[in-house]
């Protein structure tokens, strides 16, 4: 038994301690690289009043969209929320509060949150609705707005491979927000396709060091595709 062994063997254990009104940071872009089984566990648990921080909110019936029918999310911080009819209904009726945040600002808010940086200045959003109520300051003659970091009570992450110590490797563009989310949770839970023994991953190829990871679980994934676009073979 090693104190660094992060592996848990049930989803109940993986999401233990999640209670109503907590903030959850989720990795994923669209439906790519989303922690789909951890989301299902949150649905199963029935936790409510959640603030979700995620680039998107899934689609009807998949991904974070699963948490909408039972009104488990009270607020979402996201950059793009366009693929979901139930989402739109709840937003328009005021049941769901939405804080639209530029994608790069969202990524940086997570990165800063995980790195102990409380806020940062950025040119993104100056002169737009995003700047409303935020501190503005000039550096070298250019205007910037102050954006605050985000830390989650939980972060839920999907990686490709891990060792038992929680060192993570992501695969292709399923990486997206996942490494950033992993740093920004008070409790970071990661689900992966394969778990190997410490020493079996090349230290040079680890994307996220295990220090950020609290719990690790192995599972299988549907990996639904949002826009299947192909070219004919032979071109």
């Amino acid at each position, binding site marked *: 038994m090693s104190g660094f062994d992060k592996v848990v063997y049930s989803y109940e254990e993986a999401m233990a301690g999640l209670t109503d009104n907590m903030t959850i940071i989720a990795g994923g*872009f*669209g*439906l*790519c*690289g989303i922690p789909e089984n951890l989301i299902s566990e949150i649905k199963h648990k029935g936790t409510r009043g959640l603030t979700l921080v995620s*680039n998107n909110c899934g689609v009807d019936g998949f991904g974070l969209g699963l948490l909408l029918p039972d009104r488990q999310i009270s607020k979402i911080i*996201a*950059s*793009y*929320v*366009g693929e979901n009819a139930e989402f*739109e209904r709840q*937003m328009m009726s005021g049941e769901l509060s*939405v804080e*639209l945040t*530029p*994608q*790069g*600002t*969202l*990524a*940086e808010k*997570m*990165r800063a949150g995980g790195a102990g940086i409380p806020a940062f200045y*950025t*040119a*993104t*959003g*100056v*002169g*737009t*609705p*995003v700047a409303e109520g935020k501190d503005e300051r000039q550096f070298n003659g250019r205007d910037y707005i102050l954006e605050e970091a985000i830390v989650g009570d939980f972060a839920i992450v999907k990686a*490709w491979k891990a060792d038992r110590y929680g060192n993570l490797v*992501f*695969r*292709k*563009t*399923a*990486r*997206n*927000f*996942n*490494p*950033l989310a992993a740093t920004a949770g008070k409790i970071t839970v990661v689900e992966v396709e394969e778990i190997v023994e410490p020493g079996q991953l090349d230290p040079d190829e680890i*994307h996220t060091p295990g220090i950020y990871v609290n719990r690790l679980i192995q599972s299988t994934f549907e*990996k*639904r*595709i*949002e*826009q*299947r*676009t*192909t*070219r*004919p*073979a032979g*071109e």
Partner: protein
Amino acid sequence: MALSRDQIAQRVAQELQDGFYVNLGIGIPTLVANFIPKDIEVMLQSENGLLGMGAFPTEDEVDADLINAGKQTVTMAAGASIFDSAESFAMIRGGHVDLTVLGAFEVDVNGNIASYMIPGKLIKGMGGAMDLVAGADNIIVTMTHASKHGESKLLSNCTLPLTGKGCIKKVLTDLAFIEIKAGQFHLLERAPGVSVAEIIELTQGELVIEGDIPEMKFS
């Protein structure tokens, strides 16, 4: 004749240079990839975390873990790299991308752009557009010159919520190629067969016409 979507993309592609790193937005900008001149190399950046985006996959190559910012399945070109979203936007915010092409609802004489929200109608979010317009120096906006009802999209002041302030210098519409400087639109080129008078008619913001305005050339 107004330009087709493909012709708009084709004209934008003439602005590409060998060695450019380029971010193409959703819609017409995506089509620019089909017209990259054969004698130059460009690398396409997709803001979800891919530099060196390739063609769409064949049915056998489809990989759910490999998509572009439009959530379409894609492939990687030789020399591609993968990174997280913070790294991706470090490239964009840090001004490392040579050319950004994106769509818009409105652009005005002060270089303001509105592209992400129609209050009460369309509230989907800005995605990476605010970062792209704030971070890039070289931006081309592609859009139709006027709405279906003939209302100009080139205005003295944007009416919709802004995506960025004072950041647009070039606009390519289905009628004209326009530069924005010193609080005015300047007509650089017109679509083949479209008269200067037609362009003036459909441009609400102040438009400067200097000398003979050439027609766009398509080889």
